[in-house]
């Protein structure tokens, strides 16, 4: 097997990991939450059962909605898959499609997925979904800039906004890792993950009108389309968490070998890293109270300011602690 073929196989492993491991992470989160609440909770494989059931159910389309309603889940799903081709998930070196998009391109691709789902929510023509669309559009309007600012900060540290270079630089240099810029970026990104994946203190998942955002957007979906929207949500969560871990927080323990075993090793370590992050997220979710809806925007504003501060600290403190 030559190098080219190996890379292609690793590519497939990477996309497969994102697609098929992401529901498991969602299942683990739900189970952990239940355990902390001293309940038994559903099996960690419950999301898989849900998806397979939903895929076989009939689709109910609201009358008077247009074809956007049906196409949108496919577009979002595709966008997440394309992103999963270009970020370091199982390898610390770029895969053949790594040159497709850089971090900023990826950020705007996340934006595309979000916007399409918001448009579809308006197309569903109920007030619940319109409410979800309104909230989601407003929060995205602040979350997207935060993501862009974070990537600008990273790009200024490394001189490139290629995620692989960032990964290599951070894993090889303690002074960069401990620099104020990087620490601030990590905090801002973590806050952003809480927002984007709909976790407390931002959003309590479920159908409570006061706080629902993402669940309101997909309220009219059913059957296959609901399965796609849910699955897309799991993938988005998985992607953001993986980028956070592999690029920013724990850039180590990824196998540099260009081989299938190397890639599988990295999948294993990524899973362990994810478990730690999931633990932290669940603890936060179980111990914090939900913010009032409009306080979320303050929360986002803090994340946004932290990202700006990280850029400023790069110029003020200088590059890193030692050099």
């Amino acid at each position, binding site marked *: 097997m030559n190098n080219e073929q190996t890379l292609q196989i690793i590519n497939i492993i990477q996309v497969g990991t994102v697609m098929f491991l992401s529901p498991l992470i969602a299942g683990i989160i739900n189970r952990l939450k239940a355990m902390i609440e001293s309940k038994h909770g559903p099996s960690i494989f419950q999301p898989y059962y849900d998806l397979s059931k939903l895929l076989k159910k009939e689709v109910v389309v609201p009358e008077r909605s247009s074809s956007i309603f049906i196409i949108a889940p496919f577009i979002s799903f595709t966008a997440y898959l394309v992103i999963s081709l270009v970020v370091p998930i199982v390898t610390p070196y770029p895969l053949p499609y790594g040159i497709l998009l850089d971090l900023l391109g990826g950020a705007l691709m996340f934006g595309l997925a979000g916007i399409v789902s918001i448009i579809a929510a308006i197309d569903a023509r109920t007030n619940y979904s319109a409410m979800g669309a309104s909230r989601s559009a407003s929060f995205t*309007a602040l979350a997207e800039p935060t993501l862009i600012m974070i990537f600008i900060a990273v790009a200024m540290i490394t001189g490139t906004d290629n995620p692989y270079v960032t990964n290599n630089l951070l894993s090889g240099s303690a002074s960069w890792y401990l620099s104020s810029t990087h620490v601030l970026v990590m905090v801002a990104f973590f806050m952003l993950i809480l927002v984007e994946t709909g976790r407390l203190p931002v959003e309590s998942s479920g159908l409570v009108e006061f706080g629902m955002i993402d669940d309101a957007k997909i309220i009219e979906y059913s059957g296959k389309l609901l399965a796609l929207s849910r699955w897309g949500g799991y993938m988005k969560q998985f992607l953001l968490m993986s980028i956070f871990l592999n690029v920013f927080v724990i850039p180590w323990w990824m196998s540099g070998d260009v081989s299938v075993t190397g890639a599988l090793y990295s999948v294993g370590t990524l899973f362990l890293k994810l478990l730690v992050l999931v633990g932290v997220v669940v603890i936060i979710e179980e111990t914090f109270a939900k913010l009032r809806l409009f306080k979320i925007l303050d929360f986002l504003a803090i994340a946004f300011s932290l990202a700006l501060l990280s850029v400023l600290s790069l110029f003020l403190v200088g590059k890193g602690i030692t050099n």
Partner: protein
Amino acid sequence: MDSFTLFQDVVLLYVTGAVLGLFSRNTCLTRTLTFVPSVVASALLVVFSSSVIMSGKSLQIVAPGVLSFFNFEILIDGISAFFILIIGIISFAVSLYSIGYSKEYEIKKRTPTLVFLFNIFILSMVLVVASNNAFFFLVFWELMSLVSFLLVIYDHDKEENLRSGITYLIMTHFGTAFIFASFLLGYIQTGSFSFDSFRHSSTGFPLFVKNLVFIFAFIGFGTKAGMVPLHVWLPKAHSSAPSNISALMSPVMIKIGIYGMIRTIFDFSGFGISPDFAWWGMLLIVFGSASAIIGVLYAVVERDIKRALAFSSIENIGIILIGLGLSIVFTSFQLTAFAILALVASMYHTINHAVFKGLLFMGAGSVVSVTHTKNIEHLGGLVKQMPWTSLLFLIGAISISGLPPFNGFISEWFTLQSLLSSYHIPSTILQISIAFASLPFALTIGIAAATFVKLFGMTFLSKTRNKHAINIKEVSRSMILGMSILAATCVLFGIMPYLGTSLISTAFHLPSQPPSPFVSISIQNSSGKSFANISMPVVVIMLLSVSIAIFGFIRVLGGTTKKTTYGTWDCGFGSLTERMEYTPTSFSQPIRAVFKVFFKPHNHTEKESFGENPYLLKTVKIETMVKNVFEEILYESIISSFVFFFDKVRRLQTGKINAYLLYIMITLVLLLLFVRLSNNA
């Protein structure tokens, strides 16, 4: 045909179109026919400008002594040709669109005037860009301003339009005065009004003259471009003008302001590689980022679809100015590679904004022409009746939000890349200022997406909130054709960014980008190491193939399932009416709440209840308004101080003959004194 004859033909065709329009009768056939010259002329304009760009040979015409003091000079080099190309593309699409659109004015029997002004307007813009002499530049500039003023008040039955016209007329002349001052400085230094002489001797100007030339041009052209705080005319004028004219003004005319700025800064101001000029760039960045964020904030809360688009033009001009400013800063520190990147970003956004804003204004025009309302509160649910307009508007909306795979994504990505290259600038103060400028820019991208989700969603999706909107039909074919041309350009410039970058680098004589359209675009720093890349054709192929694969995959996983169409859950109330819908105002309410410091929203609630119980309401009336800070604080105070001053001056005019005799006496004495004193000296 050589380029000179081609150019002559274009001018003649526009004149023919104008004359034809003026003398034609108001029938359906003539309406179609009178737009034919401008369609042909615009197509020739595209051919002409691209041939000038590709051949790299500029067209120069000098007709000496047309007027005793001034030579009539035309110079179309790469930069002019690039802007003429923009004019050509947009006016081609808009001319086609106008064939169907002008039907709306048939009843009022005013189409002949419209055709006449339309042709003269396009011609004047071409001639402004082509002029190589300050005098003729100003003549054509004035012609452009006056014709566009007449077009703004074209619908003069409405008083609102007349007001917009007056605001526009005043602001545009305010700008022209500064442009005039800038050129006069050049004249004082060189003794000639020819741009050639400015070009040759500008490096020798004293530094303070260079700075003054820049400042005057910045204010003058900035007014035309709609830069904050000189933007007040723009939303009014663009929403009052007929939609096909808005589709020319907003995409093209404000770009002429950008053209003037580029021409003056890079050609006549003696700009060069020296940190002395870094502040020029910073000024552009500061005003650019202010325009971007302020424009988009007003756009997101706006209820008038055309005003919202006009505010978004201010935002996009801001993005263009940020790129231009960065390019100047980089040049002044001799960071050539980044200067080129920023200039390409800015010019790419210039052509992109022209294309998608033209498309969106035409889309808005179609909506207005069938529903007769500009207020999106009264629109909604048009996607069923107007599927083509909806689709094309959606393409424009996604493009302008800067999302892949359309063209806005490419230019915003370039601008972001040039912003984050700012850490190469060897000055911490500048680095920090640019970091602060990237903050409003990032916010702008986010809020712009929300704006266009709202505009598209509330206009075309959701339920119909208008009783007139029930019997409407799709607009005529020529209108759809006009929009499709620009939509196709959006897609083309999105999936083949190579096309745009090579166009710009050839036009501006910059080192070019990779050779094949399928090679990814990579941006290199000064040492030749690439630091960022995207490959749009592959991204698009991936998007398409993956989505088809997903479709098949889901099919395989779940098997075939039924699809039922059913009403949405109405909580058991019976039918949900459009009055229970989320309105555009409620949609953007969270953003209004976050930026309440800026908007200073004014809410007023009136309740009328049954009897004593305050909870049993008969009617509730809520009024919510957003304050326009600039008009109400900045301009009001200027206007009131003027009024105050001239009120005082008016006291001189007593109407008594004795007083006037006294004035004459005083003047005479003063003049005699003056002559006496100056003779002594």
